């Protein structure tokens, strides 16, 4: 048993030290103050000014995908070097490299590497390594948690597919170039079998992107496909094998979600605020109705840290983290919501003031979190589904039998 956390770079070889220094110096020159400010203001993915330009610059160095071969736009470095880049970015930017994943082909890249043909690798990997932007095209009006019931139809027509239908909650689709798109290629097959993955060009004729506005004021989109022609060579993996590809990609996405820096930052801010602020003549922190929830939340932040460390420890030991990644995700999302909710109560009437408002406390971040954290308990897999997954995978409970609905 050992809970020592290694300091960044503690086990670097001489070569790695040199590389770390080079990356660090480059980052100091190329991370702009607006990028730092954007992440400090707790803005959500894709809305950080300068992030796209930064990703593209990082791409020219080959450091967006450092372990990829040079001919694919990587730097041809051994696996450990990706974490060096990530750690050095984390030292300078609040969200670390997390914001890059949502912007670029962070989800598509590893999947193409694993399932793509040689030609596809040659075509897509250099684009992704250079910072090409992708939006995710999974969810539909009638396919959310039950993603496999998606209906966006791709009909075969010679060398192309003709695509018709609608995607929902496609964040970034209004500025990204490509759509990482789950389509139904065969409606006759059982629902998990008739799905394929293709890359669509969002600028193609017949694609319409319309705005949906979330309560966090983050823009997301509906994307409509009206007889859009997409070449079959853009299909990743065999036709009908899309479901297993999506699952691989989802696991990679979920693993990142739990390691979110907000809970710790917000609780630290609230403790600091309660110590410095007087209400009715005495420091807020002396009120049991204030220190009780804050001590509880501080404990829960530490529990989240331990859940995340455990997942990392399992990965390091070569054990499949399985349901423990979901456990960390459930815990993080619900803790974030508790912090925002109780934090607003501690701020009292000030709690309702938005970022930028006169008199906003803690930069309005608690109020923003109250709105923005809602998405975390269903985005990336609903907590309801993940709880059932924990019980069935972790404690061996039987799965719920499927109810067969009569089709109208």
């Amino acid at each position, binding site marked *: 048993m050992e809970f020592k956390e290694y300091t960044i770079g503690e086990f670097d070889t001489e070569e790695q030290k040199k590389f770390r220094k080079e990356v660090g110096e480059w980052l100091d020159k190329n991370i702009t103050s607006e990028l730092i400010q954007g992440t400090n203001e707790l803005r959500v993915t894709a809305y950080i000014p300068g992030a796209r330009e930064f990703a593209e610059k990082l791409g020219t160095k080959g450091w967006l995908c450092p372990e990829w071969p040079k001919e694919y736009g990587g730097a041809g470095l051994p696996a450990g070097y990706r974490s060096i880049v990530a750690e050095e970015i984390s030292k300078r930017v609040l969200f670390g490299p997390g914001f890059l994943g949502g912007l670029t082909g962070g989800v598509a890249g590893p999947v193409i590497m694993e399932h793509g043909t040689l030609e596809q690798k040659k075509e897509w990997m250099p684009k992704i390594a250079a910072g090409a932007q992708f939006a995710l095209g999974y969810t539909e009006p009638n396919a959310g948690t039950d993603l496999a019931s998606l209906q966006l139809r791709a009909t075969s027509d010679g060398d192309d597919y003709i695509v018709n239908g609608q995607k929902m909650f496609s964040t970034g689709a209004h500025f990204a170039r490509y759509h990482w798109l789950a389509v139904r290629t065969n409606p006759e097959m059982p629902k998990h079998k008739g799905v394929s993955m293709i890359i669509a060009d969002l600028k193609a004729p017949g694609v319409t992107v319309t705005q949906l506005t979330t309560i966090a004021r983050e823009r997301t989109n509906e994307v409509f496909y009206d007889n859009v022609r997409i070449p079959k060579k853009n299909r990743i993996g065999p036709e009908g094998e899309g479901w297993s590809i999506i699952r691989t990609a989802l696991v990679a996405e979920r693993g990142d979600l739990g390691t979110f820096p907000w809970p710790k930052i917000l609780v630290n801010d609230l403790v600091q605020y309660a110590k410095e602020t007087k209400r009715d003549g005495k420091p807020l922190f002396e009120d049991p109705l204030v220190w009780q929830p804050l001590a509880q939340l501080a404990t829960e932040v530490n529990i989240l840290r*331990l859940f995340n460390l*455990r997942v990392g420890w399992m990965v390091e030991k070569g054990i499949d983290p399985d349901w423990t990644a979901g456990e960390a995700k459930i815990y993080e999302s619900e803790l974030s919501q508790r912090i925002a909710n109780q934090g607003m109560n501690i701020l009292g009437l000030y709690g309702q003031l938005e970022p930028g408002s006169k008199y906003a406390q803690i930069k309005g971040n608690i109020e923003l979190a109250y709105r923005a954290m809602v998405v975390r308990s269903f985005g990336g897999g609903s907590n*309801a589904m993940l709880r059932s997954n924990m019980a069935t995978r972790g404690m061996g409970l039987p799965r719920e039998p499927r109810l067969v609905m009569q089709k109208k």
Partner: protein
Amino acid sequence: MDFDFNEEQKMFKQGVREFFEKECPKSLVKKMMEDEQGNPPELWHKMSQLGWLGLIFPEKYGGGGGNIIDLVALEEEMGRACLPGAFFSTVLLGGLFILNIGSEEQKKDLLPKIAEGKIILTLAINELSASYEAAAVQVEATGDKDNYVISGTKLFVSDAHIADYIICIARTKKGTKPEDGITAFLVDRKSVGVSCTLLKTIAGDKLCEVVFDKVKVSKNHIVGKLDQAWGPLKQTMQQVIIAKCAEMVGGAQRALEMAADHAKQRVQFDRPIGSFPVIQHLIANSMMDVDASRFLTYEAAWKYSEGLPCEKEIAMAKLCTSEAYQRVTATGEQVLGGIGYTTDGDMQLYYKRAKAAELTLGDGNFHRKALAKELSK
């Protein structure tokens, strides 16, 4: 980073589990709840022979030289088994306190006897105020040249009715700070003026009222330094809290397993109830409670074993584990339904012990206060 016990500790833990499965069946646990003595002599003897009563004492005092992580491994299994008896009072409260501040003579005399299972020891801290604060120590000891005379009532004293010695925490001086002027006395329970009354408790823990009526104690029986017992007492409590948390983690893990097993086997509406998401979600919440308690406890134990500051971690471990264990067993009762409500079933044992453990050594609010004090620094 390593979230698990080492190989040796894992083997030890497995051995303890198998021993208790054989030697400490739930029928014995239930019998001991009703038993006036509460410490099964045969089991106590076997545990001493296996070296578990002296596990954490240095070898020169007849112990096994184990550290607090070894103790955590042992305690988890004790919690799982619902072990009855005097381990908590004798080894943890009494033994650790003697080990921490006893004189060399006291250590040489008492620790080997504890390890051999020959004496029962306990520590009398609480009084009628039921508080763990220093100011709550009101029982007075007044001294002359050679002796002290103790008068007052101690409450919630574990196993005092069967103890050979009671270490009584008493006030010897009224200073400006409540932490000053507190002294520990090693009192022979058979001394004139000591009387014990056994209290009826929810989980069958043998807690006593101990009345000290002008009890005469020799100055030589002071444990540690005159007027300065509070600091060492707090330090001992840190170790005892970690051990108690480990006991709760072991119990909570077992209660979770029992609930999950029942959910897999119990059929209603033509399917195992564990296939209903409502039940799955109860189980998932318990899994999170158990994991959270386990990792906080392990982290606190590891920090303590490394000599790192761990006041915050210990407070977090106790506040979380106390409340989590209660929830996990209440969920267990809910999943098991009627059979959990009967005394024939075993879930009730965990349900009761969880609540008793929550109140012992400071509940959630007590430790949130301690943590808030650390955070306010």
